[in-house]
């Protein structure tokens, strides 16, 4: 069971949250200039790292806010969380 510190509500149990994908994933544009391969990169291709990752979560059964989490995909340790757009520590090894 993860205990995830929501930036607004404090630590809560993992079933209250939904995982929302790794970040950053930047939308390419303008749409008419984007080729199929670039759309595929944006929509489907992921780092899927083993170790530290930066990802987006939503507190679905709480305040319903989106925020960013730095999490380790091997140990499940959570190093930091922050509201979208606020600075987070760099993810080291």
């Amino acid at each position, binding site marked *: 069971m993860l205990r995830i510190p929501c930036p607004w509500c404090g630590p809560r149990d993992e079933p209250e949250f*939904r*995982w929302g994908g790794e970040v950053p994933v930047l939308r390419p544009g303008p749409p008419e200039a984007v080729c199929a391969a670039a759309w595929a990169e944006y929509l*489907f291709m992921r*780092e899927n790292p083993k170790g530290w990752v930066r*990802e987006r979560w939503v507190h679905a059964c709480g305040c319903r806010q989106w925020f960013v989490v730095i999490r380790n995909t*091997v140990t499940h340790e959570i190093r930091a969380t922050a509201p979208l757009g606020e600075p987070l520590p760099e993810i080291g090894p």
Partner: protein
Amino acid sequence: MRFSALALARSALSFHDNWPQLWRSPEPKRRYDVLVIGGGGHGLATAYYLAKEHGIGNVAVIEKGWLGGGNTGRNTTVVRSNYFYPESARLYELSLRLYEELSGELGFNIMLSQRGILTLAHSSHQLEMLARWLNAMQLNGIDGELLDPPAVRRWLPLLNDSAAARYPLKGAVLQRRGGVARHDAVAWGYARAADGLGVDIVQNCEVVGFLRAGDRIVGVDTTRGRILGDKVALAVAGHSSVLCAKAGFRLPVTSYALQAFVTEPVKPVLACVAVSMATGTYVSQSDKGELVVGGGLDLYPSYAQRGNLPTLQEVVAGLLELFPAFGRLRMLRQWAGVVDVVHDSSPIIDHAPVQGMYLNCGWGTGGFKAIPAGGLVFAHLIATDRPHPAAEAFTLRRFATGALIDEGAAAGISH
């Protein structure tokens, strides 16, 4: 040596002390025609078919742990071919047919038990989805039957189908040829047969990087030194992204933990495999008498082979709603494997975007049933540089062209 009743009797005379090793454990050679990375079912079957179908015996299977210790040895062993789209039906049916002959082919009992798989509907909407799915199966030439509640009751006497049930019974689709097989035996059988054809199986050897000559991959760096290979074929399931990052490209793969557990053994109580559309829980009974139970993925990406409690709890809750009597059983073991999930729940069997490298991944939660076909079509691709006719649709390119084969959405279940 060939296994037979005679060999068993002869060995009994020496108290079974003289059985030979099933495969050698050779030091890796300097160079191979093909390096297969990953000693799971897909890697081992690929090596076997390279040697047998294409006469390429100078092959090594490189495994970082022990053979079959990844998802192949952790899965719940359901085999079936009741997929929705013709592309999938063709591939998985090929696999089931190969499974039906495999014990004889390998001279190794894989304990295939085609005891039937029932997918249960608990609402009229689910029943309609099942009927649609069954129609697709029949168009694809796959055996299947729609069962009404009385017929389901005969298959599953312990099912809670009372009027007050949280998940009332509306019907089921049955594939009689579905069932289970012994996972370790599949890995061991292919390993032994491949070894017999000259394939080197190298365990405790982790690939940590790739060797390049210009744009081409020409070998691997491992924890046991450098090994050259004209062709490098990846079959590493949940670790596909990790290795492809070392080769300089990304995949449409996300790695999740998938859990399963077994109960203490009891006398026969469940004659088939049962899957619930509402809860995602599925269950069968092993030959030892343990109930083998699985369900959905954990809630977020993970490389930890252990799984988290909330998902386990949900699976157990689903099981007990369906079969209240199982609440008396104690859980014996729980574990997880790291599975390679793609958006359309269909595999990728293709050239990698770098030369000299080949990909077999994306089987996600359901690739055990596909091991014989996966090995056969992957060997064909590696040997001929052309896709096998049964695997033409399973490209990496489909994520750009949009020609996805969305079995996750269509068949509605994950295993």
